[in-house]
């Protein structure tokens, strides 16, 4: 089995539209949640969102491409461009390498804003035609396909969808493909563009959105905050990365998944615990090896208390020595992008020796007995970090990374 190095990452998010801005924001404890901007109308039940702002699509992607790109594909492609450039790869120039590269990009909402624009024209404005590219813009594999086209990736490529766990499933699958030798490298991650009126109405209707802001593990939490963005990575065989002499950001070491086969929205301690244990087994880790967990931490009443039980169940007494955080408090719940944004946050933690803060915590809920890094980043050595994603529909995916070197 190949050791797997992460040699590139890219991010688009409410905390910034490149890795360096995102990193600084996390290390400074900046809050990216604000009232929605640029919408004609905002649902009453939505106070703040983790909206991508100041994203210059034309400058990043070129004007010619934009008619075919829903925002979810724009975010995914921009993050992939950054990750591939960081890894110093030019697959277009090396068709054989392109064939030995996989591309897996997860998404939850796919082209939901393109569909909404079409329906608005038909049913609200009374027009008879929709955007001619509605189908190729909205399809769930659009982001993945555009990444392959832009970069000459001609190996195994597809999109995955598992709501809030989409990115972790995509990243984990790519990791296993490189580790097992099916491909030499993989471009993997998740993307979603969710701050639009129709989607915000859908979340409002489910009655799980925070009244004020995202307060994971806090006693006074009132729900999740919708976010968006993309987090994309380049993974390759460790020996290739060393031979190429590129900086290794982190080592990808574990991936575990499970299904609750329980409730469509309520999480299960048993199901999620199996995913965490499967990840530890996959990585060859003992529970005591884990220093930090970037939690699913949505700040719903149900998730956070369940997740605390999951962590207690798997890690026992060692739980008290694990610095737990939910960066969703700063960038919102990116759904299909969440695992991507949060793996970038984990890698920042490994590199900087700083665990990003869980913002907006007034008092840690006694029902969430964890060492939550509250309100300000914490300086502490981090060698091994986990990133949890427990999706609606009971589909769980957990990743493990280790500090490079």
């Amino acid at each position, binding site marked *: 089995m190949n050791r797997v190095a992460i040699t590139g990452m890219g991010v688009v998010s409410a905390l910034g539209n490149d890795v360096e801005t995102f990193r600084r924001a996390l290390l400074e404890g900046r809050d990216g949640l604000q009232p929605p901007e640029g919408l004609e109308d905002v649902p*009453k039940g939505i106070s703040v969102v983790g909206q991508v702002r100041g994203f210059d699509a034309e400058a990043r992607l070129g004007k010619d491409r934009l008619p075919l790109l829903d925002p979810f594909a724009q975010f995914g492609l921009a993050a992939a461009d950054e990750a591939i450039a960081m890894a110093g790869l030019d697959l277009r120039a090396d068709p054989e390498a392109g064939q030995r590269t996989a591309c897996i990009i997860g998404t939850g909402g796919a082209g939901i804003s393109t569909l909404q624009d079409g329906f608005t024209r038909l049913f609200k404005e009374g027009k008879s035609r929709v955007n001619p590219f509605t189908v190729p813009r909205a399809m769930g594999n659009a982001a993945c396909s555009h990444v392959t086209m832009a970069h000459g990736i001609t190996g195994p490529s597809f999109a995955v969808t598992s709501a809030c766990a989409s990115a972790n499933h995509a990243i984990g699958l790519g990791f296993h493909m490189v580790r097992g030798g099916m491909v030499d490298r993989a471009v993997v991650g998740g993307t979603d563009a969710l701050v639009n009126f129709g989607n915000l109405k859908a979340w409002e*209707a*489910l*009655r*799980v*959105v*925070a*009244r004020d802001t995202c307060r994971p593990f806090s006693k006074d*939490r*009132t*729900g999740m905050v919708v976010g968006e963005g993309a987090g994309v990575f380049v993974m390759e065989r460790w020996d290739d990365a060393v031979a190429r002499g590129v900086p290794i950001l982190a080592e990808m070491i574990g991936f575990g998944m499970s299904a609750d086969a329980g*409730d*469509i*929205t*309520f999480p299960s301690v048993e199901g999620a615990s199996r995913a965490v244990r499967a990840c530890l087994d996959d990585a060859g880790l003992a529970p005591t090896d884990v220093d930090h967990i970037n939690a699913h931490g949505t700040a*719903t*009443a*149900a998730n956070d208390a369940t997740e605390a039980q999951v962590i207690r169940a798997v890690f026992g007494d060692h739980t008290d020595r694990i610095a737990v955080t939910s960066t969703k408090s700063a960038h919102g719940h990116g759904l299909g992008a969440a695992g991507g944004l949060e793996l970038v946050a984990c890698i920042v933690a490994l590199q900087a020796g700083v665990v990003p803060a869980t913002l907006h915590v007034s008092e840690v809920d006694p029902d969430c007995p964890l060492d939550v890094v509250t309100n300000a980043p914490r300086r502490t050595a981090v060698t091994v970090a986990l990133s949890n994603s427990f999706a609606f529909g009971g589909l769980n995916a957990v990743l493990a990374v280790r500090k490079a070197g």
Partner: protein
Amino acid sequence: MSDLEQKIYDIVVDKTEIPRERLSREASIKDLEISSLDFVEIVFAVEEEFDIEVPYNANTMDADFETLGDVIDAVAAEVAKQG
């Protein structure tokens, strides 16, 4: 019993199949074992029926609505606001 109360009980029976005789102003939502998803559906149906918006958040459900009477009062208050 007011029409409003009756209509709300009809909606609860329709969404949950709980026998009508178990429903009263004093009935506890927890004791009736109404799941949070059923409750979301109930609130939606009530809002559609009365053309109102009920300030309900699943995360704070226990604190906001303990009994069916609490729901009925909240709906009555919103209906009164509509004038």
